């Protein structure tokens, strides 16, 4: 009746084996030039300023942080939607854009779902047409592409007979996001970047889409990069989490550790900013004052120092490296690094023991 969606087994595309990270990002930098005021002096927005992480095969890596921290920019750099200034990105061991892995080939293996489900679909194309568009561009015959689109629609819970010929405005937000997910899967990708993909949905719909994402991941052997500002959702769906602040990763590690026992004061502040669900125990003091700072002129030293509760002089002059607190958990905070000169830092002997 329908062609199997995952026609080529992923194992044949797997080059480096299970130990090789699917995506490695090293020293990624993107600065956007801006002008301040009319005819004013030039400045740069340091949107992404030296980001390193990797995503293992089959895992879900969450990226959290306030607006302007560079999480969406990072996603767009990975997808090649914006050109990066510096840094290296390896997909299954091959440099993206190299002869071994041209951008076009990479894009067939990495797809993205955006927050705004409406503006990411062509309003003048039926949803079936939108889903089949990618495969058609990559040379799949029309009939086969349409057939695949229909079986994907069925898979994301939209009955093809009822929905295939509809236009985006004829669907609800939740249904449109399902279409976007189906479209992302049409090229049988290995990596799916979800940029606030459930943030605009109502809670009950969000839960349905999260369940769908978990099922699809299992079924199609996917790896997710999951960008969100909702820490509850991230804790629920992600294996590991990277916390970003002003264009840099400040903490990265297993979701259960980072979101339960955070090592960075910023992560702790983010967590305690979540509204309490207990009427007897409401929040009394806001953990952070003021708004997220501007990525144009980040403060010297640790970028979090003006808002940090543990700040000491050393924080204003020394940039903390992203150093391990244990083999799978790294944090960029002088207060957590032995011998850093911060009074709260563990002593070197205590760590050695």
């Amino acid at each position, binding site marked *: 009746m329908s062609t199997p969606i995952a026609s080529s087994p992923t194992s044949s595309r797997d080059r480096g084996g299970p130990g090789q990270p699917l995506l490695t990002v090293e020293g990624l930098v993107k600065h956007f030039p801006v002008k301040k005021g009319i005819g004013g002096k030039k400045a740069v927005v340091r949107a992404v300023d030296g980001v390193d992480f990797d995503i293992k095969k089959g895992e879900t890596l969450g990226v959290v942080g*306030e*607006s302007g921290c560079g999480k969406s920019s990072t996603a767009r750099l990975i997808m090649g939607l914006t050109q990066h200034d510096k840094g290296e990105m390896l997909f299954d061991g091959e440099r993206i854009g190299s002869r071994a892995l041209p951008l076009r080939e990479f894009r067939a293996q990495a797809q993205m779902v955006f927050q705004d489900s409406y503006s990411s679909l062509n309003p003048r194309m039926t949803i079936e047409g939108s889903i089949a568009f990618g495969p058609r561009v990559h040379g799949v015959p029309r009939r086969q592409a349409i057939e695949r689109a229909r079986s994907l629609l069925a898979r994301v819970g939209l009955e093809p007979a009822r929905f295939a010929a509809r236009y985006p405005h004829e669907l*609800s*937000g*939740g249904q449109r996001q399902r279409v976007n997910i189906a479209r992302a899967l049409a090229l049988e990708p290995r990596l799916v970047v979800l940029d606030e993909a459930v943030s605009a949905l*109502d*809670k*009950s*719909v*969000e*839960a*349905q889409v*999260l*369940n769908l994402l*978990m099922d699809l991941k299992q079924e199609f052997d996917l790896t997710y990069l999951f960008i969100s*500002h*909702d*820490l*509850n*959702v991230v*804790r*629920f*769906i992600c294996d590991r989490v990277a916390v970003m602040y002003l264009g840099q990763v400040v903490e990265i590690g297993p*979701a*259960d550790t980072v979101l339960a026992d955070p090592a960075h004061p910023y992560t702790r*502040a*983010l967590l305690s*900013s*979540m*509204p*309490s*669900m*207990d*009427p*007897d125990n*409401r*929040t*009394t*003091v*806001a*953990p*952070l*004052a*003021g*708004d*997220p700072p501007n990525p144009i002129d980040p403060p010297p030293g640790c970028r979090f120092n003006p808002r940090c509760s543990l700040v000491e002089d050393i924080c204003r002059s020394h940039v903390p490296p992203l150093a391990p607190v244990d083999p799978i958990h790294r944090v960029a905070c002088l207060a957590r690094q032995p011998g850093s000169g911060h009074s709260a830092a563990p002593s070197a002997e205590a760590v050695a023991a």
Partner: protein
Amino acid sequence: MNEPRTKTPAGPAVAIQGLKVTFGGRVRAVDGVDLTLGRGQAIALIGESGSGKSVTLRAIMRLNPERKSTIEGRILVSGRDVMAMGRRELTALRGREVAMIFQEPLLALDPVYTVGRQIIEAIRQHEGIGAAEARARALQQFERVRIPSPERRLDAYPHEMSGGMRQRAMIALALACNPKVLLADEPTTALDATVQIQILLLLRDLQTELGLSTLFVTHDLGAAVEVADRIAVMYAGRIVEEGSARQVVLNPHHPYTIGLLRSRADGALAKGSRLQTIPGSPPDLANRPPGCPFAPRCFLAEDRCRAGDPPVVDAGPGHRAACWKTDEAARSFQAQRAELSDA
């Protein structure tokens, strides 16, 4: 209070009785809402998109498009009928008696005037005082909403402020004429969590400080718990459950409230387990099914739910739910909670 008010009438700040709002003669967005906002009380109206919470809120200030909508029922603000008001009275009501803050301050503030000028204009419009005096009042408002270096910020344009600062400026504008009732339509939805909590705490402080009666529309249960004494849950244009924040969150009696609480990712049993969802989607408001609007998605629905409107049942002092099966619903919720805490 800055200026003396002529006698404060007794009774609730806002009383809504049998409110029905129909758009274009077909879409019944609000379908029989009864709600009483006591003086100095904070009520959160929660619900998903299309549940009628914002339309209810707007009806209090008569902000819904009058030509395109039919409004039935009664709305009393301090005992006076809003529906019977003429243009003049309405202008006096808006801003001076009842004020509103919106989700997106960048759209609600005028981009071509400084924020200070907009506040001064509002004060002078209502009170006919001099410019210098109005400016002093505006400055006082900025201090009240804790805007740093307020003197300088008064002369800033909306686009020169950050999101959190703009929201504070809008609150300052709303409170400029010392209204008694504050209506807030998703005031923190567009903000970062770290800023959201600051604004929620500010709203809570202002409410106690100024004795405001607040009606707060949100889709986020967490935000509702942070600011509200009472929570009213809306579904398809009706209030399906209303009670104190404690009652609604810890001892819900309506299946929809229970569904909302269960579908939260923080309520999931374990990582990797499936989230409990509410199946289906809200009804088409132009073709409402008979009976309880939630019946097609309800885990407890039976024939009588689809036949006629459910009764409003008392679930405790000041706690009501519109459902035939409140006891069973509450038992099911408590059983699952016990299971969760055992695990």
